[in-house]
């Protein structure tokens, strides 16, 4: 059957990549799904497109690293890895794209390739075989055997699927779900629902094709995929009235499943973490609630304050904490969402409806929950930030009032607003060639802080951090033109620049790092603005960074913590909080 060939899959992926606009991509993909006659092939096609060689929930991996792939490809082309392959990879910014091109162009590779047009099933068997092999040279030999049977375009997608990563065709799982609904005339909301509770595109595809979506059932004690927040800058929200705000705690995400006296806790990567937090388990078991699923945050909570994340880390990964640790780092669960209540699934309901249910239950059963509030304008938002920060919390969450609970990142539904730790005027010292969608342009920049008047240094500038983003495409284009003027020397993918381009960079935090020349590094530095109006002489000096650090240390001592949530008097391990 020609349609279930891997080649057909790859041609489809390529056309999807080349189609502009999500609707065109969905249409193309739906057409492909509909032509797959065999449900096994369909399951694999959906999984390969959106998850990888293995289903995400399986936890299985082909376990072939990037370096193995690159070295195998060089060997396949009888080519020098360090000298030639790496230079080519640097130019395209993508190993798989480089390999596709080299396999098409290099006679030594072409000689070995004899396409056998394997079907999707065969590809899946190869992935399983790769996963089962332990020795590196066995993996190498198998990979080269497989490549010799594939067209270069098949090899490209084979590598991308093997890495369990994105196919880089601008088509993510949300769109795949839409394509499945379209291909088999199923109700989109139902397909989304099934995807959410199964966590598997392959299974969802199969149920679409066999019209058995009704059979999919939410099962308690099987974790649901988490809804995630997208980071935004505070200025990026237009209509604040559509959102509810809550403070964001420095904790660990957790999903609680409860049924009577049985309870189970799941982490964001869907692992069972019940054993690590016995006091929470005991608490939820004691509530004797009907079937329910809560989403929230675990935090260390002591003396009526939420303690810093570093204290929670003492509890994370500890399978059977002893009484000393339990006493020293007691935790609490702060709920902010409810997905299931009394046998009924709520994730398709709007946020405000879910919150009503949640708050009623929490108040009745003395479960801590986040306090939600309205912010009318940007001034109030700023004020709410400051309040959250002054209480030692991380920032704010903005949740769209009408949003349903959906799997993964939903751009406008949940927004995570963190305030920058500060900003500095720095100079670009090095430009680094990017990879992936930024391949072929200089997209990463090492930023320098001024030490010209500093006796401890002989240089004029020393590195303070490396920034990967925050600029617009236009700005990036302009920088790429400008850096040619300042380029001094080139080391592989890195360009050394003389001081000229000034960047106002914002960052989350300053950290002490004795291994760097400056002694400090910036956490998550990103461009706020390119200051064409400033010259390198106007840049901030290292002493400014040192002052910021002093202030921060001072502030940490002053902080009074944790008043952003409603605490109806529960904490299992801290009797003081019981009224």
């Amino acid at each position, binding site marked *: 059957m020609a349609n279930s060939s891997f080649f057909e899959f790859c041609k489809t992926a390529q056309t999807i990549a080349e189609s502009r606009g999500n609707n065109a991509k969905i249409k193309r993909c739906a057409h492909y799904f509909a032509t797959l006659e065999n449900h096994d092939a369909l399951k694999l096609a959906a999984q390969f497109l959106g998850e990888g060689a293995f289903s995400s929930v399986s936890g299985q991996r082909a376990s072939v690293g990037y370096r193995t792939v690159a070295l195998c490809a060089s060997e396949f082309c009888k080519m020098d890895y360090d000298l030639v392959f790496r230079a080519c990879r640097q130019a*395209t910014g993508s190993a798989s794209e480089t390999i596709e091109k080299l396999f098409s*162009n290099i006679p030594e590779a072409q000689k070995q390739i004899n396409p056998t047009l394997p079907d999707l099933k065969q590809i899946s068997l190869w992935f399983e075989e790769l996963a089962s092999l332990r020795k590196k040279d066995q993996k190498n030999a198998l990979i080269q055997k497989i490549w010799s049977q594939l067209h270069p375009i098949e090899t490209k997608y084979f590598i991308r699927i093997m890495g369990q990563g994105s196919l880089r065709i601008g088509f993510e799982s949300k769109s795949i779900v839409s394509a499945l609904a379209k291909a088999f005339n199923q109700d989109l909301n139902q397909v989304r629902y099934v995807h959410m509770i199964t966590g598997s595109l392959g299974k969802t595809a199969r149920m679409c094709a066999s019209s058995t979506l009704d059979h999919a059932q939410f099962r308690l004690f099987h974790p649901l995929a988490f809804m995630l927040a997208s980071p935004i800058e505070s200025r990026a929200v237009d209509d604040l009235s559509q959102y509810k705000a809550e403070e964001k705690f420095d904790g660990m995400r957790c999903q609680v499943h409860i049924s009577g006296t049985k309870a189970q806790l799941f982490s964001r990567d869907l692992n069972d973490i019940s054993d690590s937090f016995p006091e929470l388990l005991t608490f939820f078991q004691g509530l004797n609630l009907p079937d329910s699923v809560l989403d929230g945050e675990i935090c260390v909570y002591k003396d009526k304050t939420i303690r810093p994340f570093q204290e929670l880390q003492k509890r994370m990964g500890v399978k059977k904490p002893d009484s000393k640790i339990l006493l020293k780092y007691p935790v609490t669960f702060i709920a902010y969402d409810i997905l299931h209540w009394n046998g009924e699934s709520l994730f398709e309901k709007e946020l405000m409806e879910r919150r009503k249910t949640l708050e009623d239950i929490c108040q009745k059963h003395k479960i801590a929950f986040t306090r939600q509030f309205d912010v009318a304008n940007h001034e109030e938002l700023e004020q709410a930030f400051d309040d959250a920060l002054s209480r030692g919390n991380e920032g704010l969450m903005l949740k769209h009032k009408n949003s349903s609970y959906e799997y993964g990142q939903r751009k406008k539904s949940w927004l995570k607003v963190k305030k920058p730790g500060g900003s500095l005027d720095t100079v670009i010292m090095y430009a680094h060639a990017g990879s992936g969608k*930024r391949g072929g342009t200089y997209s990463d920049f090492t930023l320098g802080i001024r030490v010209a008047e500093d006796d401890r240094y002989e240089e004029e500038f020393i590195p303070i951090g490396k920034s990967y983003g925050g600029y617009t495409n236009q700005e990036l284009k302009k920088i790429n033109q400008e850096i*040619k003027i300042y380029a001094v020397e080139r080391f592989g993918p890195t360009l050394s620049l003389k001081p000229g381009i000034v960047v106002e960079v914002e960052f989350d935090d300053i950290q002490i790092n004795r291994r760097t020349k400056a002694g400090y590094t910036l956490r998550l530095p990103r461009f706020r603005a390119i200051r064409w109006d400033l010259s390198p002489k106007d840049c901030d000096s290292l002493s400014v960074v040192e002052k910021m650090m002093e202030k921060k240390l001072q502030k940490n001592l002053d902080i009074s913590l944790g008043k952003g949530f409603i605490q109806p008097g529960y904490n299992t391990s801290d009797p003081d909080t019981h009224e």
Partner: protein
Amino acid sequence: MKFEKSGYHGIILSDYGIGLDSSSPNIELNLISHAHADHVPRDRRVSVITTESTRRFMELRGFRGEIKTLGFLEPLETEQARITLYPAGHILGSAMIYVETDEGNLLYTGDFRTPPSPASEGFQLPQNVDYFITEATFGLPIYKWDSHEVIFEQIRNFASRTLDAGETPIFFGYNQGKAQEIMHALSPLNHPIQIHGAGYPLCQVYSDHGIDLGPYDKYNKDTVADAILVAPSSVQESAMIRNIRNKRIAYCSGWASHESRRQQMIVDELIPLSDHVDFFELLALIKTLQPRHTWVTHSPNPKVILHYLRELGYSASSLDMALKEED
């Protein structure tokens, strides 16, 4: 043979008083390979020698210095050297500069393409080349071009499909050379073409040379929707493009062979139409020439082509002149 680099681009053979794409005003004979801005002196005090078409382009683009012309294959004799221009196949007027001396014969390619662009005077090599200075803009084995026939067909197909769908085809290509090459590819469709204002005057030079650019006119915002638009990619964010409601955009460049350009440029089609030689064409050319020594310039990573040349037994080194990404 002794030579030195001159500025960002360009080479000076000081023993002979010859400059190749040099910007130095102190050289008697400054030869210019072609009219792209990175090969033309900015300084109007420099007097230059180049082909007739390149002279016209330079003047149209505002060069105010003295320009003498020299025909292809018409030797210019000096006391110590003989200089001849050979068609380079890069854009109209582009020339490779061949310098014969007692020390040996040197060929400087400027930018070149073989097989040549159909919108150029073709490509021709001199007989004996001892020293070869070549560009290697696409000097990596990931670059291998389809023939002009295939690429031109892709250009016409894109335009026809877009017009059939009732939309406006837009081609992004550099105003000088690439734009006219695209128009030449489109000419058999006999559909009205509009070109960006800065590229428009340059078209006359092509027409005078007998290269068919189709029924073309200068960009006009009132009628562009019914035409095919050819413009540089720098206009992407401008009103020129925004005002065309239903459109599809193709990006024509050697760099369009990179997948990442699809998202970076936000275009519908990537058409790898290059006016530079690819890696394999360059190696083949050097095998034909058998030079005593080769210098490469303008390479993204000169180590790679040098590695291959040395493996083949050729003496080669890098001039590593520039970090450019033109067109």
